[in-house]
């Protein structure tokens, strides 16, 4: 069990980061803090996806650079690149909504918002 835990140390770290981000999102009342928590969860998932594609001592997937036979897989890299763009888009819309909530309700603390109407 310990050996499995150690050989998957990267997945353990990713899980810790994911759960920490989830905790920030759930436990913190400030809307902006929740968005920061969301970003932490997203980067944790991206770290997981990149880690699945890596090879110990492998080279970046660049041909014609005289790099070694062991290449990290380019597929997860493409996925994460698209994922990061999606993450920044969702964050941008969330921040725009937060600005409007502040404008309309005067506060961005979730427990002070109560029933809007």
């Amino acid at each position: 069990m310990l050996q499995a835990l150690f050989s998957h140390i990267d997945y353990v770290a990713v899980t810790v980061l994911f759960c920490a981000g989830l905790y920030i999102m759930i436990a913190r009342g400030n809307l902006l803090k929740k968005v920061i928590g969301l970003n932490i969860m997203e980067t944790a998932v991206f770290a997981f996806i990149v880690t699945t594609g890596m090879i110990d001592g492998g080279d970046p997937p660049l041909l014609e650079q005289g790099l070694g036979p062991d290449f990290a897989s380019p597929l997860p890299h493409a996925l994460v690149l698209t994922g990061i763009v999606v993450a920044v888009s969702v964050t941008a819309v969330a921040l725009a909504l937060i600005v409007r909530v502040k404008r309309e309700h005067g506060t961005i603390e979730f427990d002070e918002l109560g029933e809007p109407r």
Partner: protein
Amino acid sequence: MIEAFNPVVLFDLLILVLLIICVISIARTRDLVRAAILFSVYSLTLCLLWVHRGAPDVAMTEAAVGAGVTVALFLVVIARVGRRER
């Protein structure tokens, strides 16, 4: 277990520990500006990890988007929304 402690793995472990410290301090801080700055530190450390993992494209994007643009958006919204978190 012994072979696991060569410098490569140690570098990885160091970065992972740094990431977790960053996240814990983000969770604890009450000041949103500090949280945003800590998030950019977190992003840059993550970018370091990915360079080490053979993913330079992703590292560059994470540095530019995660540490750069996202934090700039956070700071601008904090300027309009107030930095204290109750």
